[in-house]
């Protein structure tokens, strides 16, 4: 039931901190008791005095970020990181994946494994491990990949999920594409599922949906944390038989990663609005769900500027492969142009949280036209629910997709710089 989070590098540690903040704030007293206790058990270890200590290991090759995160947590008054749960060095990885993977990782393997083991032993039952990191830098990407490898060796039967943050397209790090490609190539063989957030997308959400004029990395990280929280907080799944699922990572992976060649998952959450507006908004299910479905179909990343012209391909155009009818495909028939940019899914997971979840109409997500022909919608589509409102939104819906949505960023990444 518990998830141990491994925070790697500056990004991993900053986002991780926001995640614990979100889930702690979400499951406060006053919420339904079982939701609260499952959430707490999942993310925190409770000391005898009742203090919440995050089930997390903080790893970085320089000390400043970890120090900052730990102080911030301690100052929150609601939860802390364990005193013995961090590892840092002084010299950094120099944005060099090879430094992280070939030098720092192996050099400190024993110490890092010990830290993770300590956290795992404190769990009554381990439901899985989540490694959080960026792919652009040196530590998150390089050490993160190495640590994932160690986790896989040490816990061969556990579910391991990687949460990756992809950098802005116009650069934060000049060698980011090298670091990203090397990371993804290795993780594919190690991870059970890879959850991806793109800085550009999240930045757009901050600008256009949250109306933030001055967007800081803190703002970006809070959006990512909100989306992750929406996925990882307790939910009732098809296998959990009326109780909150004890196996969130496993069920996530089995719902979505139906084929070992396709592990990259993207996510969208609706609604997202400035927190000041939440109190004044009314929520109902049909509108947001309709938007979410079209966002999936047209590969729009947010609830604004959705392209409603993109339609599902007609029955005659459906094909066996993932790419037929996708990019550049779709011959003949009036809907060909629209079908050419339709985002085909392998699998989708819809998570509904809040009031009246049981009355929400989700049939639109089971349309076979959304998916490939070799998986029936019954197997390709999963639905989780929780009657508890998440993070102040009376109703919210999150869609985690295994689809073509990440093709374009992947292409961009591997094209620059050209390695001949």
């Amino acid at each position, binding site marked *: 039931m518990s998830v141990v989070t491994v925070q790697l590098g500056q990004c991993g540690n900053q986002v991780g901190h926001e995640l614990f903040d979100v889930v702690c704030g979400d499951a406060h007293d006053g919420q339904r008791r079982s939701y609260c206790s499952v959430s707490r058990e999942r993310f925190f270890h409770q000391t005898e005095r009742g203090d919440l200590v995050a089930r997390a290991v903080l790893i970085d090759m320089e000390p400043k970020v970890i120090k900052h995160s730990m102080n911030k947590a301690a100052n929150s008054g609601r939860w802390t990181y364990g005193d013995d749960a961090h590892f840092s060095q002084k010299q950094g990885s120099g944005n060099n994946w090879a430094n992280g993977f070939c030098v720092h990782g192996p050099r400190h393997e024993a110490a890092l494994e010990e830290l993770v083991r300590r956290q795992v032993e404190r769990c009554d039952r381990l439901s899985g491990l989540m490694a959080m990191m960026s792919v652009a830098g040196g530590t998150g990407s390089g050490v993160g990949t190495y640590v994932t490898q160690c986790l896989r060796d040490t816990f061969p039967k556990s579910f391991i999920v990687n949460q990756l943050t992809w950098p802005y397209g116009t*650069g934060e790090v000049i060698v980011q594409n090298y670091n990203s490609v090397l990371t993804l190539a290795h993780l594919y063989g190690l991870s059970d599922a890879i959850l991806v957030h793109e800085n550009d997308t999240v930045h757009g959400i901050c600008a256009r949906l949250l109306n933030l004029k001055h967007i800081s990395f803190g703002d970006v990280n809070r959006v990512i944390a909100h989306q992750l929280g929406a996925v990882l907080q307790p939910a009732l799944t098809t296998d959990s038989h009326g109780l909150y699922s004890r196996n969130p990572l496993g069920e996530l992976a089995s719902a979505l990663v139906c084929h070992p060649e396709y592990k990259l998952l993207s996510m969208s959450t609706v609604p997202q609005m400035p927190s000041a507006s939440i109190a004044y908004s009314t929520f109902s299910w049909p509108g947001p769900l309709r938007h979410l479905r079209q966002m999936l179909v047209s590969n729009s990343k947010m609830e604004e500027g959705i392209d409603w012209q993109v339609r599902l391909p007609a029955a005659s155009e459906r094909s066996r492969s993932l790419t037929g009818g996708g990019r550049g495909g779709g011959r003949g028939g009036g809907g060909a142009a629209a079908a050419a940019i339709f985002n085909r899914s392998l699998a989708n997971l819809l998570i509904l949280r809040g009031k009246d979840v049981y009355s929400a109409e989700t049939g639109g997500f089971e349309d076979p036209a959304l998916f490939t022909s070799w998986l029936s919608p019954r197997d390709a589509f999963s639905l989780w629910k929780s009657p508890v409102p998440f993070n102040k939104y009376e109703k919210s819906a999150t869609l985690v997709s295994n689809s073509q949505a990440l093709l374009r960023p992947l292409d961009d990444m591997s094209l620059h710089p050209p390695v001949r």
Partner: protein
Amino acid sequence: MRHSKVGQCGNQVGCRFWDLALREHAHVNKTGVYDDALSSFFRNVDSRKSDGGACGFGGRIQHLKARAVLVDMEEGVVNEILQGPLSEVFDSTQLLTDVSGSGNNWAVGHMSYGSVYREQIVDKLRKAAEHCDCLQCFFLIHSMGGGTGSGLGTRVLSLLEEEFPEVCRIVTSVYPSPEDDVITSPYNSVLAMKELSEHADCVIPVENQSLVDIVNKIKHMSDGGKPGLTIRKDSSIISGQGGLRGAEKPFDAMNNIVANLLLNITSSARFEGSLNMDLNEIAMNLVPFPRLHYLVPSLTPLYTLADVSVPTRRLDQMFSDAFSKDHQLLRANPKHSLYLACALMVRGNVQVSDLRRNIERLRPSLPFVSWNQEGWKTGLCSVPPVGHSHSLLALANNTCVKSTFLDLKERFTKLYRKKAHLHHYLHVEGMEQSCFSEAITSLSSLIEEYHHLDATKGKLIPDAPRLSIAR
């Protein structure tokens, strides 16, 4: 980090640097606790302790000692430092001096003193390195035109590579202006260039003339300028105010600029921020091929206006300024050449959205090399420099440095053709004519490499000879 200051220029700049560094940390560190940030530049020593006195983090500041080695072959400058208010910051084990100087002769610095003092230099560097928990980088500060800084300085550089091959070496080199009064400065500079190309990880060239221009601009603003627009005294990058030093000395204003450059480069390694940038990330991102490691620096803002009712210059103006020639510390023109890479190190109250907006705005007018169209290296440090709410240091690997090198080559050739002053060098033990021809060849081929990349500008040339390395 370890600083080695060599020669008059190096030590004078260094002196301003340590003064301003103390000022900056005093501004930020209100608790008097010896913290991580301080420890990157300073040791904390309690001289009452018998074991050498080193104090770890978290304790009160006792005596701060700079992590530095000062080298000069005449005593004047170093003695002055030791008699001034910064004397406490250095102890005798960190110094290496001689009496008669190098006579503006690279060979004397590099060969003669280089051999005589080799052991001592290595010894002092070793001791200094041992005091560091984790040695991330060496900074070398020197001038190119003289004898000690240029000659002995580059000898120290190759010793650093020999003794500490894995530690990054960043060199700040002050290049002579054409009107430099040292006649042999072209010889010294070209001989030093070969060493820099071969042994440095990256070089930040600074031209005296650019520094002079900036100083004049600021003086004009603060003296003449528009009525009512006065500059905040401690905020200009030429000001040493707030430091320990009293009256200003002649080169102080120019040296303060270089000192500020060093403070800004190291800011993200010392203070926290939302997107940290370490020193070893600089070479990693900005140096695409080993010898092409010359980075053009620009610093903004140059000053803050004192009158708070005048609206502070828009943040975006700061980014535009970084790409204007007025703020460069080198007199080349990057906009007509090719960017191989560019780094923006931002300090203060600036968010990632500001950074993105400005990159998108400026990017279309900046010519980038075909295989790095989108690549920028960015850093956000929360702590601004003293007297400013924000600042920006841009480091550009741009082919325009080629023009600086071409100038140098021309001045060298003028002298060398006539063999003028050559005998002073050839008389030095270990120095031969081949040193000169090798040095000029090295410079010529460096210029050629930049030339080749320039030729790819605007075209999609698949195979400039350089790029075949990727195969």
